[in-house]
């Protein structure tokens, strides 16, 4: 035990669910706020239908919204005596399990937020700390540049606008769109569509049957790895791409509209292969497809200006 300071128990301050009369009769109002540390950790889970997460330049967490009257809403702030709270935890549970209720969670920009729901719409904006968001259905939309971003969904769609330095996006059948680049991103799906654009250092795109589309650039020394079983792979790079390209399919076709190099038949006449160095090389582009077709082409100048 640390002997320098007497231990003071951490307190969870339960908060009010205000029974506000003017509100729709079947809803209860949720409102709670508290000073927290700039890097507080906030966890929320349960059967909410809609969650808005907003980073703001205040060292406090505010949760507001409404949940159905028959839902159970609980939670609290970890509260060391006499200081801002380092963390909070909230739950919404409805007796039927049917998603309902709308919540807005305001957190310090540097906070780390962990949210888990069934079928829900989660919209996060302005958090530069970390986001770990998990839904089954519905959708997750992230704007801004969280330092660490993890989003998982089953058939829910994931859309990320902004440049998370580290991102992991995964779905079963939901579509995934990743906007403007990352230092280290991995996007995986079983059957959803993958749409990735921007400038990347390390990027991995993986699908089983889902189509994979990439419109962007890989920085020098970086890498793009794509693997798919049967999804089509559509890669568009800037004309000035500098990379070592290595593409092989087991039975799919390769179409090269990027330059004049022609694909050759694969080993034992199986599938096709295409390998070349674009520009002076330096980045690695590695694509493996079992039976999905692969197409390589150049980005239009208009598109290039967007990143």
């Amino acid at each position: 035990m640390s002997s320098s300071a007497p231990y003071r128990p951490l307190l969870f301050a339960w908060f009010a669910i205000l029974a506000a009369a003017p509100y729709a009769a079947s809803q209860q109002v949720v409102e709670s706020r508290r000073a927290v540390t700039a890097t507080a950790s906030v966890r929320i889970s349960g059967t909410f239908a809609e969650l808005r997460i907003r980073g703001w330049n205040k060292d406090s967490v505010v949760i507001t919204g409404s949940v159905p009257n028959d839902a159970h809403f609980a939670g609290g702030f970890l509260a060391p005596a006499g200081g801002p709270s380092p963390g909070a935890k909230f739950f919404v549970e409805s007796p039927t399990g049917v998603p309902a209720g709308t919540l807005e969670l305001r957190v310090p920009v540097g906070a780390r937020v962990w949210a888990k729901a069934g079928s829900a719409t989660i919209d996060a904006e302005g958090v530069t700390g970390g986001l770990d968001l998990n839904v089954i259905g519905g959708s997750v939309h992230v704007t801004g540049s969280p330092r660490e971003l993890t989003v998982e969904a089953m058939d829910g769609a994931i859309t990320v606008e902004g440049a998370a330095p580290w991102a992991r996006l995964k779905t079963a059948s939901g579509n995934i769109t990743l906007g403007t680049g990352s230092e280290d991103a991995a996007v995986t799906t079983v059957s959803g569509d993958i749409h990735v654009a921007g400038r990347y250092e390390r990027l991995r795109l993986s699908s089983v049957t889902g189509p994979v589309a990439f419109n962007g650039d890989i920085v020098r020394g970086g890498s793009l790895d794509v693997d798919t079983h049967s999804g089509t792979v559509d890669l568009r790079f800037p004309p000035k791409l500098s990379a070592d390209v290595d593409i092989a399919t087991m039975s799919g076709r390769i179409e090269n509209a990027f330059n004049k190099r022609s694909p050759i038949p694969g080993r034992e006449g199986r599938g096709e292969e295409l390998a070349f160095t674009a520009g002076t090389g330096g980045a690695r582009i590695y694509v493996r497809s079992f039976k999905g077709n692969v197409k390589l082409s150049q980005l239009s100048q208009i598109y290039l200006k967007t990143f």
Partner: protein
Amino acid sequence: MTHDNQSHPSFDELNDFVDDRLTPAGRLDLETHLALCPRCAGDRDRLELLLDQSRSLAAEVEPPAEIWSGVHQRIAGRSPLGRRRSWLLAAAALLLVAVSSAVTALLVRRPQTVAVRQSAPAAPLAGVGLPVAARAVDADYQAVIRELDESLAQRRAQLAPETIAKVEASLRVVDEAIGEARHALAADPANRDLVDLLAASYERKLELLRRASELLPAT
């Protein structure tokens, strides 16, 4: 030991412990600390109390005044939720981590593959004969998948039918791909690309099963 008396686990680590999100190694590490540190053990108890209360709708249980402050309100009703954690799931997660290090080793065999955040050290498999490696991939994944399949079967009753339908639809898609890749590999056992593609499909299946096993009850 990571957590000596000078470095108590963070709020996140305690939450991960209570939520069953730590690796087996991390869990053991934290348990060791909790056994020696009444302060952290108390925090863990409070977190578990919060978790239990919010999940069990124990309307009649008042938090002790000296521990809880502020106001709270509960809504009457019965929780549809069953046991919070299943021992089987924990065992499956443990197995998954143990096996995935072997799997990671295969996946990172390619040079400069995207860094995968995984604490388990990846032993390079250079020099291992490919047909053997292919069989190893198959065997490794099959074992862990069987475990996860079983734990998911145990949890079926807790999950919404439409969720199970979604999971199973995606599993069918992956299984078909795995079947095709294995068939191709049997005809061309020295094809490294096929080994990688088979491993990638297995990886998708593992992810799917792991995520399904972590779903909240009744979702």
